[in-house]
């Protein structure tokens, strides 16, 4: 199954996106743990785009599409902001104590840890980030 949705670059778009995405995944009877991971990945990537990616105040559209097969799920994010590869971000320093830790950079780090595979490319002036979650058939039956 495939789906596509389009969001404006505004944080108020997150809640409706979350509801739609979660309904789409429930229809596919995906395991709850996968649904939870995907919702978190979507929130973190989109927040990052909306809050950091644009150099102007104009309205921009962000594409979010998904492809589900028997064995995996791909989420794809497309934005027309300046070239930015989130996979090149340095990892946050997780070993220092919380007192001296910088609290930024955690969102994308969560994405890299929850995804099974990530791909970034620049296509036709767009940043394209594809995120893969592997599904196992056995997991599929445990939903609900």
């Amino acid at each position, binding site marked *: 199954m495939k789906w596509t949705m389009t969001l404006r670059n505004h944080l108020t778009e997150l809640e409706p996106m979350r509801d739609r995405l979660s309904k789409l995944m429930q229809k596919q009877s995906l395991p709850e743990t996968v649904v939870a991971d995907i919702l*978190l990945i979507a929130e973190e990537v989109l927040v990052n785009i909306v809050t950091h990616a644009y150099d102007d105040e104009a309205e921009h559209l962000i594409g979010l599409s998904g492809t589900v097969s028997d064995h995996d799920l791909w989420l794809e994010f497309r934005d027309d902001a300046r070239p930015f590869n989130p996979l090149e971000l340095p990892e946050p320093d*997780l070993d220092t104590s919380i007192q001296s830790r910088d609290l930024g950079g*955690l969102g994308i780090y969560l994405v890299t840890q929850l995804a099974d595979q990530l791909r970034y490319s620049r296509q036709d002036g767009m940043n394209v980030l594809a995120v893969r979650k592997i599904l196992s058939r056995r997991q599929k039956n445990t939903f609900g």
Partner: protein
Amino acid sequence: MSLKVQIDEIKSRVSKITLDGRLDTHTSPLLEQQLAPLLNSPVTMIVFDMSNLTYISSAGLRVLFKARKTLDAKHGKTFMVNLQPQVQKVFDIVKAMPSVSIFRSYEEMDEYLDYMQRKETE
């Protein structure tokens, strides 16, 4: 609103914060707002009851970290109790809290606090 925050003073200078729902980009500012007066008060211990928290994102983590930083600076303590698996997973990934401040139950936390108190009075 998909987050409910309840604050109870359980002892003098000890508050329990019960989080119910989702702590994300949308709801984190609500918790931050409600926490502010508490963090400016003489409270020395905050226990976050996470039994009904089903989801946390980096925005939520940042609010909890800030609370912890503020209390640590006053030599206070923050504890998390009853984390659901999805929330626990996120905490594990970011190594957010030293394991000693996360407890599976209140009993476990009480035992730990009793033990620390005995150690101090010995």
